[in-house]
């Protein structure tokens, strides 16, 4: 028997009774995650549609309010998430090739980058509170957009807040993967959880890829 290969009985113990083979089980999990991600597209899509509607109705207020966001922090966070996606992809590759230490290492790097993203997001939120840019009675904005700029910031907090919540859930999922990898739960034949969690992490990255230009980069040339 090849080292690192599973015996037939070991393989059978990993396959749930409704599946014929480990590969079929992996495919079912893969498609299940894609179906969930399609519902996530609808979830974020509702907010994106609302954003499009109000940006069209109040172009001046959206441009003026967008200029209050710090492009440097937004761009840095975009790059951090892209590096974290690379690290996640390399973690999946490590699981496929059966390298446990590398798998744990890349998962930890991904988690650290996710935490850095959330830290920078926290700094930005703090600045918004300090600059009176949180919608509500304390909101202060230059005329003539005192009221309509609040609509932009409502979308800003709703979209980035839901995205940050997804990042937090991702950090939890990665923690579970690290623990399972530590306990030697993954082999080249059995690593579906790593790949499927990777799909989720990459999806959250894609949401931010759209949020960055739509929130931070409106009419910057003026």
């Amino acid at each position, binding site marked *: 028997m090849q080292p690192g290969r599973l015996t037939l009985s070991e393989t059978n113990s990993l396959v749930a009774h409704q599946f014929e083979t480990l590969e079929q089980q*992996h*495919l079912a999990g*893969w*498609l299940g995650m*894609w*179906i969930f*991600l*399609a519902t996530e*597209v*609808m979830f974020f*899509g*509702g907010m*994106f*549609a609302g954003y*499009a*509607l*109000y940006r*069209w*109705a*109040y*172009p*001046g*207020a959206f441009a003026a309010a967008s200029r209050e966001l710090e*492009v440097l922090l937004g*761009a840095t966070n*975009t*790059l951090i998430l*892209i*590096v974290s*996606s*690379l690290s996640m*992809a*390399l973690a999946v*590759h490590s699981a*496929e090739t059966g390298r446990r230490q590398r798998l744990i290492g890349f998962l930890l790097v991904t988690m650290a980058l996710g935490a850095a993203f959330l830290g920078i997001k926290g700094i930005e939120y703090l600045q918004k509170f300090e600059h009176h840019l949180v919608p509500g009675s304390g909101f202060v904005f230059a005329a*003539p*957009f*005192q*009221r*309509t700029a609040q609509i932009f910031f409502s979308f800003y907090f709703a979209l980035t807040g839901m995205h940050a919540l997804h990042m937090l859930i991702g950090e939890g999922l990665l923690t579970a993967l690290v623990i399972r990898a530590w306990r030697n739960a993954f082999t*080249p034949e059995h690593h*579906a959880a790593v*790949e499927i969690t*990777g*799909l989720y992490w*990459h*999806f959250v*990255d*894609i949401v931010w*890829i*759209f949020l*960055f*230009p*739509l929130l931070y*980069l*409106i*009419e*910057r*040339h*003026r």
Partner: protein
Amino acid sequence: MTTQTITPRMYVAVFAALATLTLVTTGVAYIDLGVFNPVAALTIAVVKATLVVLFFMHVWFRGKLTWVFIGAGVLWLAFLIAFTLSDAVTRPWIPIPTPWTGSALYPGGPGSGGAER
């Protein structure tokens, strides 16, 4: 379900493309392209998302069944945004009785650029 055809070098190449496009989209935002600024921003975002889906998410290397679910997500997102905007954009084409024109969403008429408060 393994994807042995993908090498770490390919992942790094995709990452380099994504990082470059992030810098491009930031730079382009500071150039006045008129109505094409949002078009450029969204085009670059779609290209970046496609790279992530095809390579980081392994869709390029897997069966066609995944495309059914991706296609469904993208199609319904397009419906959601297109029909929402087509309603809002076409409303002023039909005369509306005067008491209704001062709605919260459309002060002074939608898209007229007037009376944003």
